């Protein structure tokens, strides 16, 4: 079996006193294979956490079907739970009065791990995250980043097949975020029968870690593809920023005419050097050679050039932004 998770036409409606029902998920479908890091991106209130909660058996679907490791989340949850783990960002869970070691040991017992095995894994992972020296510190004395590292270790110690990461680097500093991402990346590589489902607001993180990304908004999947494909679909043109020694309006018009239709050239200022900067949107990457030749022909010297790649954030904003403009009337959020 290659599919870790199957989600078919998943809907979830929340009934709240005094307000209309809220449709958090409105027919979501996707698959996650083993060996994959699957990203779920969306603005606040899109339905990411609701989806994670259903997959991790904390919440039942209103309709639709979800299977994790081949078991249905509604009827087969007792078979699913030994195989999964959940790590949420901004977590305040745990017992503040326990030490790091005690806390991790306690959670390992909830998975039925033998103490010697648990202790060995705890030591291994604490060393990886650089928390081994803090193992005897009480949890309520840890900083946010340290807590999140301990949470990550908690999730990994039990060696789950499917790991749910709900904004794992939320509120965590750069160094700790890098460590967490490295661990996430290597964890799946080590054993291809593992999978990770990751939700995040940090596009760079999703771009870096995820083999596939689903963009969700208002309870609907807008896109489901590898990050490279999402970026490529965004805009097929090549974009360059070129800082030059001089360029006036007349020269720009001549060069624009020379480049032909479909190639746009915009003149601005380099904020660092204050030199003129040309932003070129070219139909084909090969057109850059013609542009440089044209600039040289005008006696313009290139000082600096870089290629602008579309980012996942650009793709996300385009999809979600468009959706905000196009959106139908939806039930009010409670």
């Amino acid at each position, binding site marked *: 079996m290659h599919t870790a998770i199957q989600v078919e036409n998943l809907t979830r409606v929340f009934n709240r006193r005094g307000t209309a029902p809220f449709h958090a998920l409105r027919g979501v479908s996707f698959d996650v294979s083993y060996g994959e890091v699957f990203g779920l991106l969306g603005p606040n209130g899109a339905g990411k956490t609701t989806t994670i909660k259903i997959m991790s058996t*904390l919440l039942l679907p209103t309709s639709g079907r979800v299977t994790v490791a081949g078991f249905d989340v509604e009827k087969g949850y007792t078979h699913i*739970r030994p195989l999964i783990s*959940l790590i949420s960002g901004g977590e305040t*869970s745990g*017992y503040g*009065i*326990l030490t790091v070691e005690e806390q991790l040991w*306690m959670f390992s017992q*909830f998975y039925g*791990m033998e103490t010697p095995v648990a202790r060995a894994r705890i030591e291994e992972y604490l060393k990886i995250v650089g928390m081994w020296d803090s193992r005897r510190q009480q949890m309520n004395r840890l900083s946010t980043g340290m807590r999140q590292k301990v949470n990550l270790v908690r999730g990994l110690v039990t060696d789950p097949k499917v790991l749910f990461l709900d904004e794992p680097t939320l509120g965590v500093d750069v160094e700790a975020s890098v460590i967490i991402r490295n661990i996430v990346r290597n964890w799946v590589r080590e054993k291809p029968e593992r999978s990770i489902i990751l939700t995040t607001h940090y596009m760079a993180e999703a771009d870096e870690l995820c083999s596939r990304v689903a963009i969700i908004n208002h309870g609907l999947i807008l896109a489901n593809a590898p990050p490279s494909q999402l970026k490529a679909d965004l805009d097929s043109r090549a974009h360059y920023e070129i800082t030059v020694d001089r360029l006036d309006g007349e020269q720009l018009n001549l060069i624009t005419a020379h480049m032909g239709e479909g190639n746009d050239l915009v003149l601005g200022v380099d904020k660092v050097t204050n030199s003129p900067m040309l932003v070129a949107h070219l139909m084909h990457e090969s057109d850059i050679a013609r542009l440089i030749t044209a600039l040289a022909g005008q006696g313009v010297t290139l000082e600096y050039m870089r290629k602008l790649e579309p980012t996942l954030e650009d793709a996300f904003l385009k999809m979600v932004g468009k959706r905000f403009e196009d959106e139908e009337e939806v039930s009010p959020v409670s």
Partner: protein
Amino acid sequence: MKKKFLLFLRTLNARAYVRIFGQMREATWVVASVLGGFFTMTTYIYLYRTLGTGSEFTGLVVLGGFMIPFFMNVLWGVATQLYWEKEMGNLELMLVSPAPLSAFLVGLSVGGAMHTMLRSLAVLFFGIAVFKVQFTVLHLPLALLVFLVTLFSMYGLGIVFSSLFLYHGRDAWRTADLVMEPTNVLSGSYFPARFLGLGLVGIAALIPTTLGLDALRQLLVPSFTVKVLDWRWELLILIGLGVVFVFIASWALRAVEYKARRDARLTLRWQ
């Protein structure tokens, strides 16, 4: 089966560990909790002296003072615990794990009972020493049996209540707060339950403390005659109650967890 049993035991052990060793990290509670229990006991002993009752009532109150902390622990340390775990964000981590909820609660009960035992024994000791109470030691083994059965039944009831707290949260907490003191009164903690009349005693008997205390008083206080039933019958009823509570708890936890998953109550905080 063996795997499930081992998982149950490991979870129980881990959760009890938190309660027992976590308490030890700030040991001021030992002195304070003993003093608190002692003051409550003293209040009622002097009340009875004011009312002109016989000295046997001192023994009754001391035994009541011994049992009340267990009931408090059942109500606030076990029944409400899933509510607090949810508020702290631990409940979802516990539920995502394969460990059964009942294992957490039994672990809490074991840890809570051990913690409460120290306090109750200290209160009992001070009560005997300060007020010169005399108990019959001949029936001590039987009293110990009655006590353990009462605990089993009480904590079973606590686990039943915990399922209510899991779903209802604040409403259940407020209800528990409301009925706590009347329950202490009706269970005969401060006076022989027989004085409530048969009708009320019948209802109060559902609280294991009622019959447990009555049986303990019969076995340990020589002059105690105002009993509800013979202690042998009370022991049997307590065993029956305990078994029934365990069955109800087992069903209720599963049913309420399903309902809570359906109604999105498992992670709903600040209800």
